[in-house]
């Protein structure tokens, strides 16, 4: 393999992964605090459907994923109070049906060859310069919004009714948050894949919890742990020729296990 080309795509992979980890830390912390892990999973599972629809309609893939995630988020939030089923049941139904719809729709796309494994489990070594632009552009947008809405988002996370009585636009904040989630899912798809996106959001955040005394500390630590997982996972992937997305998640899981043990020893 020619050295220069290999260096290039590894550099892009590192840049993409680290950029994603920086956003996934704070956003993932909110997902953990708001107990939305399963919700994020349902959105991520619909990402494949977004890709297929975008291909069918000749739209940009990232745009397709953001659109379908946002649509699903709206349907879920408006449907949930209306059906007499537990929240996790509704999310389970949506999560798996969205994936099934995506896979079925994909089979109609016989003119386009699509790297299915890449979309499901990530193909970080195939990150292009355009992907990097999406990750950094989308990531900057998400981070800027999070910073601007930090206090109101925290207030709504702690207690929605109290926040509403105190005059915060609870519905709009909730909607903004799921839109941010949709953008991150679209950006993360290339890196860890639709099936593993949630883990990059919640595992570093969960590992950071034990070492943080404020929300900001937890968000920053989660970003650092995510970056560490991305860098080490990528190195593993290149070194041992393992799939990149799962390798990153494996490292994140090991970090989490260490964090649990370490905290116990300190406490």
């Amino acid at each position: 393999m020619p050295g220069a080309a290999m260096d290039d795509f590894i550099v892009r992979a590192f840049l993409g992964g680290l950029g994603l980890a920086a956003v996934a830390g704070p956003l993932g912390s909110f997902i953990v605090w708001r107990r939305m892990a399963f919700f994020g999973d349902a959105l991520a599972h619909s990402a494949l459907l977004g890709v297929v629809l975008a291909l069918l309609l000749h739209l940009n893939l990232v745009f397709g994923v953001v659109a379908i995630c946002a649509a699903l988020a709206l349907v879920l939030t408006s449907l949930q109070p209306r059906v007499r089923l537990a929240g996790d049941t509704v999310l389970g139904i949506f999560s798996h049906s969205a994936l099934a719809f995506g896979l079925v729709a994909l089979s109609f796309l016989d003119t386009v060859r699509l790297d299915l494994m890449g979309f499901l489990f990530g193909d970080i070594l195939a990150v292009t310069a355009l992907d990097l632009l999406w990750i950094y552009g989308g990531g900057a947008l998400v981070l800027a919004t999070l910073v601007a809405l930090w206090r109101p988002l925290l207030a709504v996370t702690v207690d929605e009714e109290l926040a509403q009585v105190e005059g915060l636009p609870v519905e709009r904040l909730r909607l903004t948050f799921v839109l941010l989630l949709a953008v991150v899912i679209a950006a993360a798809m290339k890196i860890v894949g639709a099936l593993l996106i949630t883990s990059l959001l919640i595992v570093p955040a969960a590992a950071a919890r034990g070492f943080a005394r404020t929300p900001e500390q937890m968000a920053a630590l989660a970003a650092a742990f995510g970056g560490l997982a991305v860098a080490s996972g990528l190195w593993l992937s290149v070194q041992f020729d393992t799939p990149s997305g799962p390798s990153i998640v494996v490292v994140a899981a090991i970090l989490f296990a260490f964090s649990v043990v370490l905290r116990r020893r300190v406490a």
Partner: protein
Amino acid sequence: MTVVDTALIRGRGLGKSFDGRPVLEGVDLAVAESEIVTVIGPNGAGKSMLLRILLGLVTPDRGTVTRRPSVRIGYMPQKLIVDPTLPLPVHRFLALGTPESPEALTATLDEVGARHVVDSPIQAVSGGEFQRVLLARALLRDPDLLVLDEPVQGVDVGGQEDLFRLICRIRDSHGCGVLMVSHDLHLVVAETDTVVCLNRHVCCTGRPEVVQGDPAYLALFGATAASAIAVYAHRHDHEHDDAGRVKPAHDHDHAGHDHAHHHHDHAGRRHG
């Protein structure tokens, strides 16, 4: 009544049903400036629902709520559990409602007697401290009206009386109206201006000493006094598991025993 002109908030003919089952019917209620109004009633009487309608959290099926223009409301919810995954010191919790200077935060915590927990994780404070922190958050909004849903829940009996006295002092020093829900008239009788006895509809209303002699009040609380005390003690035990220590801790069993003991004392005193 002069209440008509000065009401901070007023509900007229409020009604709400769930699945065709009425939870509230034709409820009228108003709070005047510097007035303490206490809503009492048995479990399931719709007390919390009434507050939630007045706060605008629930839309009533019938009736209207009017507020004096630009009235500021401080709200203390009945139950607030901060997720244990969220690292949040008390002073940060307070600043979520209104971004205030650290001095203002400590001054308000001082006023409610909870200054010592300013840097503690919110999940680690005791039930009584947590109620005071919630009260501080409501006060930081410089409210014209304080709305308190079961303000003394999860607080031991001695602490309950302290907390009611504190609420009364706050009314005097801030000049705000107070609307609160309580399960127990005996605890609030000294401080309350108006009692509203609620059991889906308003059974009786007036000064506490008048309400206590009202046949409707006696019918609601007199006949079931014995069982009401049993229910109260049991319910309270349970609340302590959750709210007394927001996050259940290792000294759980011990704390449970301790508090149960207090409650028997309390029940005894009420009879005697």
